[in-house]
């Protein structure tokens, strides 16, 4: 289970034995890789998945759950909504914090069902993205 969100004021570059884990679920390779590189540079642990189905496999195999999931909505194979529905079937996944990232103009409306902790509309700026993710940084 993820640790409770924390204030961004706590951002620190302290060496961490177990860095905060971020799961990126995004079909667009360039976006996926850019975000992953950025977060790695910032000291996060990053896992990536190309679709909802891919992400579920990841979660099933993982020993520790990610602290936050960055989720795209429109993806082939399994879209963001279906992924969320599958999360709800597993008690230990049901309350994973989700940050929705989408280019959709009605992102808040479309993501509402997923009860995301934040919605970021593409294109996303670095500061915006890091501020949101920092809320889930481990103590």
């Amino acid at each position, binding site marked *: 289970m993820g640790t409770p969100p924390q204030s961004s004021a706590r951002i620190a570059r302290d060496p961490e034995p177990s860095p905060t884990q971020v799961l990126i679920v995004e079909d667009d390779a*360039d976006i996926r*890789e*850019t975000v992953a590189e*950025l977060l790695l540079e910032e000291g996060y642990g990053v896992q990536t998945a190309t679709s909802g189905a891919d992400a579920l496999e990841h979660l099933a195999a993982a020993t520790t759950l990610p602290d936050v999931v960055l989720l795209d909505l*429109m993806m082939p194979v399994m879209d963001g909504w279906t992924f969320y529905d599958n999360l709800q079937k597993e008690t230990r996944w049901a309350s994973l914090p989700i940050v929705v990232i989408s*280019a959709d103009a009605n992102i808040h409306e479309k993501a509402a069902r997923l009860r995301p902790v934040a919605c970021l509309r593409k294109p996303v700026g670095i500061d915006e993205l890091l501020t949101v993710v920092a809320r889930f940084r481990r103590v």
Partner: protein
Amino acid sequence: VTPAPATTEPVAILVVDDHRENLLALTGILDRPDYRIVTAQSGGEALRLLLREEFAAILLDVVMPTMDGFETATFIRQREASKHIPILFLTANGADLDLIYRGYSVGAVDYLIKPLDADIVRAKVSVFVDLFRKAQRIRKQEEALRAAERQRGEEALRDSEALFEATFNEAGVGIAHAATDGRLLRMNPRFCDILGYTREELAEKRLQDVSDPRDVASDVTALREILGGRAEPYRGQTRCLHKDRRVVWVNITISLLRSAAGEPRSFITVIEDITHLKQAEIRQRFLASASEALLSSLDYQSTLAEVARLAVDEYADWCTVEAADEKGNVLESVGLAHVDPGKLELLQRLRTATVADPGSALRQSIVTGTAEVAGQLSDGGARNWGGGDQGPSLLSELGARSAMVAPVGARDLSLGAITFGRGPERSPFDDGDLNMASDLAHRVAFAIENARLYNEAQAAVRARDEFLSIASHELRTPLTPLEIGLQRLLRPRDGDGWPAERVRPALERCERQVRRLEVLIDNLLDVSRISSGRLTLQPEDVDLAEVVRDVATRFADQISASGSKLDLVVSGPVIGHWDRSRLEQVITNLLTNAIKYGRGRPIEASCEGTPTHGRVSIRDHGIGIDPDQISRIFGRFERAVSARSYGGLGLGLYIARQIVDAHGGQIEVESRPDEGSLFTIELPRQPAERHLTANEHATKKAGDGHPSPELS
């Protein structure tokens, strides 16, 4: 003394005397062919004779036993019939003035003094006979006059009767006399005619028996009011029932005939058949309400159902509205109504039978575009309506007697038909109805046309909104890595900043995003060009095989990144007169799809030539396309999969087809879900001039499918 004409009947003269010799003498004196002398020897005998006949004069002896002359005269004067007969007394005593006065007082007119002078007697008697004759003549003239008058009166009466009879019989309105209880007593031919009964049949009925059941109560009330003197004459409109059960609308006037004592004796009823006017009125009312319904909504399906329902309010017993395609095939029933809901199912069956019969009035009307009335359905005419073997029996079960059909069409385009039917209660459809039905059918056609245009406009607006939302999504997606990538590079860093080996991949990624944006924008501009017919080709001699190889090379990285592998089979140069960059675009779009929907499985591309054509095939083994989506995929903004799963503008295949079309070529697809798709394009090596110069083709293609959204 003028002797009376021989033809004259002798006048009777009564001579009364108790002396026989006197009687003989007087008879002798007065012996003339024109006199008839009647004698009596006593007053009593005289009175008896007077009872029997009429006398011109009485010669009466004064002195007689038992009843003297005066007494006798008194009696004579007392009786009405004899009171004016002149009496001449016979007396011997001429000097006795008393007697004379007494004689006058009892009514004598003159005296004959004994001994009688024959001449005087004759002279005096003849005076009175003359008087009598004159009186008699006057009386006869009077009688003749009266008789003539009576005759004239009778003639006038006969004339008047004949006049009445003629008026009654020939009147254009129905006239009937009825007893106060309504029993019909006498009716003219028109009255019988309006109601369809013979005089004998009507004589068995009462006024209220020929009323329409719906109007009986008010008709009876009217009769009571008239009897009560409250509404007389009564005038109104009411419905009667014809012998054949059809409703007859009449203007009715009822007045009351009273006896001399003022007692009501009979009703005089005048009826005028206004069914025709009433029907025109009902027809107009229906047309007005139907037109209003047609204007009230753009949902023509529900509107036409409403039109059918309005038709059975008062105009017809049933109504159906059918939609047809341009070949006259009836596609669906959009309206169906019967005044009796219990007969809806029967009507449904009749509809199915007539729709199935290509020779039915309904199908023929749609094909020929003409309206038609089928009358006499219950009387041998049912075959004309069609519906195969079942038709006539269904019509008869429905109780249909008259039906009509009008085609619904606009600008030579057949859209369907409306049918109406009537049972025996209503008059058969006539030319007026046929005109109305045609008029209504035109209005229906306009309503359908308007609804279609409106829906198309709505669809265009929806398509545009959807497109704008997708375009915005697609344009924003590459901006994310671009923005993050650039911001990363711009961030202040400790020490020497970014090492070159980390900057390069970041910049390359940014460049890729810029190219992605370029392609998107080019596609958008192409759509805009195609919509406005400005897609122009710049043909030159091109080797199609080389084009395919070039594009494949360019995609190498992307293909391997997707986990796939390209198997390229190209045999020698395939030269044609084509627009090189446009063909690159087509192959790029097909290859992009093969990668996008290929699930990382192998992709095969080939290029070959025939003497006249060049052909390129690109096959993937990915998700494939649902058979019911295949017809849509070349349309603008279409994709076979949900935009939720796969990004993209939905323009790739659309643009590819437009370019291939502009080259006079063909693009085809074979696909099965989960097995993959094979796209094949075939291009003539020498496209016809018209394909390369004018762009009507592209314009025309762009015009079908969805109307163009504005891309500004």
